[in-house]
């Protein structure tokens, strides 16, 4: 019989290994022989362009995201201006916007035949393309802006809480030492939020690296293109696996390097209750500049795409409303719900494992369980297929050898594979969110509870869990939203006759029929926003 404590130690590793199995499968495939020389072919031709495009897209997306997130986070955390309380959470909402939908909306608006250029032409009396210059949105830069518009809230969220928990005294100290506010910000507040910045940037970088739909829509070819081409057109799993593995290794390397570089600095976070009345009250041009900046950002990331979709949805309401839409909505909802719940569960397991038995093993279980986030959906999909189909074959062979009737594709032919695929992709978000709130719970509380007669697990349940409720809710919602948006894994892994809102949207979008996709696209956004708003209100009331 397995003892209880062994079980507790085993559970995190069982979870980690199942999440890791697709990635391991990919790594293993990477060591196979390159059967049709496609890797050397890529190397000789386009690989370096793809790499430089990938690097460029990531750098641009990160740079633009910082441009969006850093000022808004700081203004909202440290200044006072009209509407700040509401705006501070409205700024999180662009997370619910699927970038591929934002991309389509903007290309539609900014295309030659779109309303913007139409207006410019009729206003200035231009006749053809040659009469004027209009920036092409289908470029690397355009794609980066669109990605940044829906990814910047990750950084915003992390920076905002970093600024809020920073000791206000440090900023004041800097000012009394002769630094004006802007300089004090760059020399003190910013370096102090470095870990939040690093985490936010790596989240955004991973999302960007994993994106295919958006960059592909903008005809920007990145490493993900290489993976798709070699795998699905040239049929070389090995080459695709090689590229994915190298991509992952570089990413993990960069993140570890960043961690190592700040090993010496322990940045204490102090809770500063006096922060609230220390906000700079903005007035004059500062106030107006702030309001213009934030409202423009929100218009671009939220209001313009949503109102365009609403316009189409109303106009094509009859054509797009049908019974199936209701079924697909339900599918999306309960799938997202299930995945969010499981991701939260996994996050709690690996994080508590680290809290109970700190050390390299636990730390690596956290890292490893998050790896799948950087892998493009389609790669995850095929990565998940490998272990699960093997499991199915094993099970069926076993049943046959016992003279029982085989059960078919129990794992890979059912929703199990879809749920696992989603989990591999999104557990990282839940793990990160739980981790960051758990480290703020003072270890002395654990000790207090233990000396008061609670066991380790009971302490987690009675002390830690209630204290990280907020982090748990955030984890749940973020995963829920991501799962609502997820497309490539859903397309490839779903069972027969199973549609989600995202796959339904994709059908229309892939045929340039955005109008019919508007209603389901809005549903994805709104259903992601609702839990956001509810939870936010709950939290506000508590504080």
């Amino acid at each position: 019989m397995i003892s209880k404590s062994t079980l507790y130690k085993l559970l995190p590793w069982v979870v980690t290994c199942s999440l890791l199995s697709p990635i391991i499968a990919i790594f293993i495939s990477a060591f196979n022989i390159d059967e049709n020389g496609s890797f050397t072919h890529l190397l000789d031709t386009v690989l370096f362009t793809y790499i430089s495009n990938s690097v460029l897209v990531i750098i641009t997306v990160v740079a633009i995201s910082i441009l969006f997130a850093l000022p808004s986070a700081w203004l909202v955390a440290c200044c006072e201006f009209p509407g700040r309380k509401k705006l501070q959470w409205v700024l999180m909402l662009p997370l619910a916007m699927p970038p591929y939908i934002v991309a389509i909306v903007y290309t539609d608006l900014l295309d030659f035949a779109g309303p913007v250029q139409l207006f410019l032409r009729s206003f200035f009396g231009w006749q053809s393309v040659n009469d004027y210059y209009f920036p092409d949105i289908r470029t690397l830069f355009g794609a980066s802006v669109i990605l940044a518009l829906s990814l910047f809230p990750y950084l915003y969220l992390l920076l905002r809480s970093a600024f809020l928990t920073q000791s206000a005294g440090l900023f004041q100290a800097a000012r009394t030492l002769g630094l004006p506010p802007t300089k004090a910000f760059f020399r003190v507040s910013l370096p102090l939020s470095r870990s939040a910045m690093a985490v936010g940037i790596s989240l955004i970088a991973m999302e960007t690296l994993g994106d295919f739909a958006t960059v592909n829509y903008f005809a920007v070819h990145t490493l993900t293109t290489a993976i798709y081409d070699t795998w699905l057109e040239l049929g070389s799993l090995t080459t695709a696996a090689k590229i994915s593995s190298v991509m992952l290794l570089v990413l993990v390397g960069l993140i570890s390097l960043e961690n190592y570089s700040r090993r010496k600095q322990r940045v204490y976070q102090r809770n500063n209750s006096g922060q609230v009345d220390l906000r700079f009250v903005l007035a004059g041009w500062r106030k107006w500049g702030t309001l213009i900046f934030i409202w423009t950002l929100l218009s671009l990331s939220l209001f313009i795409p949503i109102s365009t979709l609403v316009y189409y949805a109303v106009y094509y309401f009859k054509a797009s409303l049908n019974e199936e839409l209701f079924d697909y909505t339900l599918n999306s909802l309960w799938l997202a719900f299930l995945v969010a719940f499981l991701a939260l569960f996994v996050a709690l397991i690996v994080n508590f494992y680290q809290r109970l038995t700190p050390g390299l093993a636990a730390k690596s279980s956290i890292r490893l369980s998050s790896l799948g986030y950087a892998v493009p959906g389609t790669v995850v999909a095929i990565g998940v297929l490998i272990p699960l189909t093997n499991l199915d074959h094993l099970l069926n062979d076993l049943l046959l050898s016992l003279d029982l009737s085989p059960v078919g594709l129990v794992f890979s032919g059912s929703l199990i594979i879809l749920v696992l695929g989603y989990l591999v992709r999104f557990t990282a978000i839940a793990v990160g969110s739980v981790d960051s709130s758990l480290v703020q719970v003072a270890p002395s509380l654990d000790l207090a509870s233990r000396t008061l007669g609670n066991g380790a697990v009971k302490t987690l349940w009675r002390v830690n869990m209630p204290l990280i409720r907020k982090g748990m809710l955030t984890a749940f919602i973020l995963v829920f939203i991501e799962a609502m948006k997820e497309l490539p894994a859903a397309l490839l892994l779903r069972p027969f006759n199973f549609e989600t809102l995202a796959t339904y949207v994709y059908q229309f979008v892939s045929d340039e029929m955005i109008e019919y996709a508007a209603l389901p696209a809005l549903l994805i956004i709104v259903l992601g926003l609702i839990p956001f708003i509810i939870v936010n209100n709950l939290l506000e009331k508590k504080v």
Partner: protein
Amino acid sequence: MSALDIQELSCSYQKTLVLDGLNLTLNDNEIVCLLGESGCGKTTLLRAVAGLQSELTGKISIRQKVMNDIDINVAPEKRKIGLIFQDYALFPHLNVFDNVAFSLTSKLSQQQKQQRVEEMLALVQLNEMSERYPHQLSGGQQQRIAIARALAYQPELMLLDEPFSNLDQHVRFQLIHEIRLLLKQKKMSALFVTHSKEEGFAFADRIALMQAGKIVQIDDAQTLYRKPNSMYVANFMGQANYIDVTVLDESTYQSCFGVLTSKHQSNHKKGQKQRLLLRPEHIDIKHDQRGDAVVEQVDFQGASQQIKVRFAAQEFVIKYSNHCYDSVLFKIGDKVTLTLLEHGFVMFD
């Protein structure tokens, strides 16, 4: 030249008056302590001087330069002040050297910077620590680095916000004397906020006692203790006994200790009732079987005993110094007589 001049300073926060028409002047090379209970406005005053407080009326000048007035509010970074915090506020992302060098502008060469930082670290005797990060230092060391960091900026005025209250008792007073010496050596004026009068006694030249947004009395420690201008000040500065007295003439008073004669004349009117302040050390206590006072409680405090005595239907707290090894010990229930020693005849209405 005054180091700091505050006139009619008021500040309200959420409709309550935190500072109420406050006036204060700091002389050159003088350390003034702002003493008071929490909520009296002392930290607000300090923050106002630092330029960190909004919603102010009144005037603040540092070295004759106006910092706050109507339509004037100089930014904190332009005030040339050094601010020391209770939690040290060392930048956790910078090591000791970079913390101390933080305010040094790029106008200085690398060598000059190095020299200045080393000089400052020498002042606080922490030259060895320049590579360490704040979290690797003890509380006392962190505060010394904070002082070095502020001094490196060559401020015209030092502001210290409860700088010693996070420190252990034995480190605290050592550091207080060390830093006082340092400030005197650097001819630095300083405003120092604390709620502990012992710190104030040890650190400051003058103590300003604050109550409800006003300075109720500002004087050196002795005067404040011996000649408080109100019962509030008297009580804040130390244990106090009060007895009712009736004025007989300009210098004599009727009390439960009999007729008392003062060396100084007062302008009280005959027959007026007053309350006379008697510090515990102003009353002598002796064993006396026929005495009309009874010991109710004894606290042995090493160098002295603090004794509570019931006399004339009133409780007195008395301090009895244990002069030599076999000094008298008092026990509960002992009969004693009390006699008044020389005192300042401080009386309140």
